[in-house]
């Protein structure tokens, strides 16, 4: 909060909003995965947007890329959190190596990772079981063959999803898919927490993400994490032609806000 006041004072004093007007808090993310994929683009979008907020609050966000076979190069003291976009083994390994850090999984649907209820793995991308449950709910409503669930769709417009899709497409000239959304969301929930709570230490951030998060992921819900480490979220239903046909929880089958009807709701069930 002090940082905010100093920032405001500096704005008044200088009479202008310039990036260099205030001392910056540097916030660094480690990204493990391919830099030519959608998840990476989503993370980059998130960093860009975090800096749009950070310019008002004196925070500067930077992304550092690593390959999964070179986790030794990651200096834990530098990073606020890690984002992994490869496979279950890498997610698990990063979780074990960087116990004090939030390890944000933005690409792996693997159910076993959730069932392990690890203390520092946070799964932004939906689990396989969540997707399967959504598809089962859809089948109860209409026997359309081949409708699949996804964490995001480029034609989703509600809850200002339209704006996010537009921004992403403008920047990368391709539609935002669920991996890009998860990458964006991983950064956004962190930058929101940094801005609100002045959290700049990895352990404090991890604790807040697990217990205090109330995140606007442009899917209309206040999102938070289950004790399995899975992000509660709305899913989108896509027909075989790739068109958006609905949302899950599927209205008429379960209550529209019953997001825990999708996937393993708790470690203790």
């Amino acid at each position, binding site marked *: 909060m002090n940082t905010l006041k100093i920032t405001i004072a500096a704005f008044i004093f200088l009479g*202008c*909003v310039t990036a260099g007007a205030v001392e910056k808090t540097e916030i660094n993310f480690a990204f493990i995965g391919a830099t030519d994929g959608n998840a990476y683009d989503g993370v980059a979008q998130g960093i860009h947007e975090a800096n749009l907020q950070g310019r008002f609050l004196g925070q500067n966000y930077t992304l550092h890329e690593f390959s999964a076979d070179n986790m030794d190069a990651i200096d834990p003291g530098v990073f606020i959190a890690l984002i992994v976009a490869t496979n279950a083994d890498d997610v698990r390994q990063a979780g074990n190596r960087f116990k004090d850090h939030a390890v944000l999984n933005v690409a792996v649907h693997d159910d076993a990772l959730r069932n392990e209820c690890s203390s520092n793995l946070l799964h932004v991308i939906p689990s396989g079981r969540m997707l399967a449950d959504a598809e089962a709910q859809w089948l109860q409503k209409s026997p359309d063959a081949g409708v699949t669930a996804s964490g995001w769709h480029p034609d989703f417009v509600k809850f200002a999803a339209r704006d996010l899709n537009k921004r992403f497409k403008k920047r990368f000239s391709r539609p935002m898919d669920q991996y890009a959304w998860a990458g964006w969301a991983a950064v956004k929930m962190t930058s929101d927490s940094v*801005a609100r709570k002045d959290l700049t230490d990895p352990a404090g951030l991890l604790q807040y993400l697990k217990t205090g998060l109330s995140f606007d992921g442009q899917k209309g819900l206040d999102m938070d994490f289950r004790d399995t480490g899975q992000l509660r979220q709305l899913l989108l239903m896509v027909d075989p032609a790739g068109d958006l046909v609905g949302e899950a929880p599927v209205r008429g089958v379960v209550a529209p806000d019953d997001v825990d009807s999708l996937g393993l709701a708790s470690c203790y069930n």
Partner: protein
Amino acid sequence: MKHLIIVSVILLAAMQLAHAASGRIFVTNERSNDISVINGSSLEVERTIEVGDRPRGIGISPDGAELYIAVSEENVIAVIDLETLELLRKFQAGSDPETFAVHPNGNIYISNEDDAKASVYNPKTGEQLAEIEVGLEPEGVAISPDGKHVIVTSESTNMLHVIQVPEHTIVANILVGARPRAATFTNDGAIAYSTSEISGEVKKVDMSTFEVVAVRKIADEKAKPKDVILNKDETKLYVAGGRSNQVIVMDADQMEVIKGIPVGKRVWGLAMTKDGSKVFSTDGVSGTVSVIDTGKDEVIKTIEVGKFPWGVVIDD
């Protein structure tokens, strides 16, 4: 008698200068690309005017002569003559103009949702006077009655940006709950109220310190507050409850919920008559405008308008 005549003459002259108010209610219909004109006495739609692709924000010039409409997909503000209801002109207003507010000096302050900017235009000439960098997805715009402060809410950055006029510098960035949508000022400009859609909160901001002095989370989880206005004596707040399908009445001091008034589905826009007797709400999904009697805080009439009514303003 002589004095009375002089006063009458002055009043008449003033009325002519300020253009006789028609009492009409104007509503933008986001998906039928038109505006509904509601007669202020009969409360019936008397006319529908096509304005272009995705009309949203709506406002009236301080002299009461012109109606302004943000036509979002065309990136323009459409200007309509309030007397003839003819479209006078359109001017370019930056990328994706959504909401705006009219300054007492006649300039308009617009949030450009796509661009993370607020911009200032002279609607008489269409000239852009200033551009101010704000947070992502700027949305609500409110201007203090003395014209010294403009609040722009940025939905994705979760801030109220306080812009000082005429310098157009940002003097404060106030972090609020997720997805701040709208703001309003008390008449003396000392207090601002702001809604946050996702966090379901209404916040009270002291405009001398720029600090949030009170927060009220609306208990109804479905309540996604959008527009907010004060009643005439500033004792009550009316908050559009979004998907709770209610206009929520709060006491302005403690922000305790007094009542939820059931209206149509997905209520967003609100406007109050100058005499304070009625509040009009736009019920987006229902395609209706609800008329609330502020004495009883009950709906006295529901008016069918176009598709997805969004903004509402009264020419009174």
